[in-house]
Structures are given as C-alpha cells and as structure tokens.
C-alpha cells in the first residue's frame, strides 16, 4: 500500500466531516451583519399619532427590543401573546416597527389584541426596515443601552425563545 493511494480517502474524510458538521446546523439561520453595530438612526411618524416622532434616540440608556410587525403577517399574530407577556410579566421595553401596513388596521389590531409596545413607529414604505436588513415579519432585535444591536430573532418568538434567550440576554445587558 502506497501512501499516495490514500489521498482519495483523505479527501473524502474531509468532505464527510464538513457534511457531518453541516447536518448539525440550522441551514436557514442567517446572521445579521448589524449585530454588534449601532441600530440605524431613524425618526418615523408614530402609528397612533402621525405628528409624533419615534426613533431609537428615545430609548437611549436602556435595553430595549425592536419588533417588526404587520397585520398581514400570520406569524405576528402568533407571537403577539408572547410580546404581551414580555411587556407585562418581564417588563421589557418593546418598540414596534409597523412594517408595510395600513395605519387603521394596525391601530385596530393593537386595540383589539392589546398593545405591548412603549412606542410604535409607522413605516408604510419599509424604508427603515430595509436599513435594518429585514427579511420579512416578524423580526425582533435586542438593542443595548448604548444603542448597539446584540441579537436578532427571525420569525415568531415562542414562549421558550422569550424565556431562554431574550429575557436572560436583556437581564445580562441591563446596566447594574
């Protein structure tokens, strides 16, 4: 047996290893390049009050969540109770970014289902969403006291996501 006839086997072992590791990973999860960077500065009209200005500047100094949602989005309905729970039970600060929606429908939704947001920004054209690199709704960002994005969750938040990931992260980031 000559060593060079082992080369094909070696190449295969490398490929199989990569495939093996690949199997253990979630192929759908795409990290955001914005993690570790400042949340894009924006000032949008408020959802309920078009005269008001809502933006990250208002939240400076505390840890907050930015939640992208719309009434057309089924996943948003699904996670709504989780958000309410986050706001009421865990006392998290959540800013809503209403994405590509009708103002009246969105206000009606919050009246009917409860409003977990300390403030709601209205982004009918999706301009801010594009700056955030939003794929779709819902998406949730965790922003620290210095305005740095620390975490991004794509898709609806489950009670387990809230309990095991979001809340511990917020607690850890909170200035002591």
């Amino acid at each position, binding site marked *: 047996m000559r060593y060079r006839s082992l080369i094909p086997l070696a190449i295969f072992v490398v490929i199989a290893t990569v495939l093996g590791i690949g199997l253990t990973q979630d192929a759908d999860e*795409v*990290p955001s*390049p914005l993690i570790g960077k400042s949340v894009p500065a924006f000032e949008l009209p408020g959802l309920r009050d078009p005269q008001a200005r809502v933006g990250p500047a208002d939240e400076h100094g505390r840890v907050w969540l930015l939640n992208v949602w719309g009434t*057309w*989005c089924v996943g948003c309905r*699904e996670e709504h109770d989780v958000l309410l729970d986050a706001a009421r039970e865990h006392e998290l600060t959540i800013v809503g970014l209403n994405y590509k929606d009708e103002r009246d429908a969105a206000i009606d939704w919050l009246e009917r289902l409860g409003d977990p947001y300390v403030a709601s920004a209205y982004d009918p054209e*999706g301009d801010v969403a594009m700056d955030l690199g939003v*794929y779709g*709704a819902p998406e949730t960002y965790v922003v620290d006291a210095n305005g740095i994005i620390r975490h991004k969750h794509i898709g609806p938040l489950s009670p387990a996501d809230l309990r095991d990931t979001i809340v511990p992260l917020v607690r850890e980031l909170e200035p002591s």
Partner: protein
Amino acid sequence: MRRWLAISLFALAGALALPAAAGEPIREFDAPDQRERYYSLLEQLRCLVCQNESLASSSADLAQDMRDEVYRLAVEENRSEEASIAFLTERYGDFVLYRPPVGPTTWLLWFGPALMLLIGAAILATIIRWRRNNDENTALSPAEQARAERLLASDSEDER
C-alpha cells in the same frame, strides 16, 4: 426548481410572512448603462427568503422590495455597482452576494480551481515523463503487445 423553497415558505406562512404582492413596475432608465447596471446587480444578488434564487428571477415579495431598493440605489441615486453592493452588504451581509468577495475566508474558493489545475498539470507531466522512460528496453512491439493482451483476456476467461 428554486421555487420549491418559496412554496415551502408559503406552506410555513405562519412562520415568516411577507406583505401582499404589488406587481413589478416597469422600470425606466435614463441611460443604457443604468439599465445594464440594474440588471447586472439583480443577477448578482440573492433573494434572501428564497435562498436559492437571484433577485432577477425571484417572484417572492421580499425580492420585489429589494429590487425596488436596487433600483433606488443604482438608478435613482445613480450609485456605482460597487457602491450599491457595499450598501446592501452592510445591511444583509455577504450572504446576499452570489459572487463572494475575495478575502482570507474565500481564498480557497477563488484560487482552489487554479490550484487544482496546477496540481493536475504537475501530476500529468510527472506521469508522462515517467511513462516516456518506462522500460525502454523491455517495451513490446505493437504485435507483441496485442498478443499479450489476448493472453491476459483468455486468462480471465478461465476463471469461469
């Protein structure tokens, strides 16, 4: 084929939804190079929710939003191709690019083929050089060679 994901995403509509479709508008261009730049960008960028379609081919709604964005960047704001790409990668990451940038993590990707070709050529040259000098004295004439092959063949028939 690449629509399958789009379909499965629709099946999972509960998980991640997109706003209702607004048909693709008809694009207008001031100059032919804008048009070229716009369509060239669409070919190079990935539709993120489809994960296997370029922006040019995807009919997903996010792709439409991103096409609008590309149109705004490359045509309305008249940015260069590089500047438009830089703008998008800052927000969506390298994942959005179908042509990954050359860098330490992609050296193997970009130079791998050339490297393989070099290795292949080197092996080829070695083999030929070796075969040229292979048993110069004992080499068989074509007739002898043929006879040898016949013998080998009949040998293997005996195994039956």
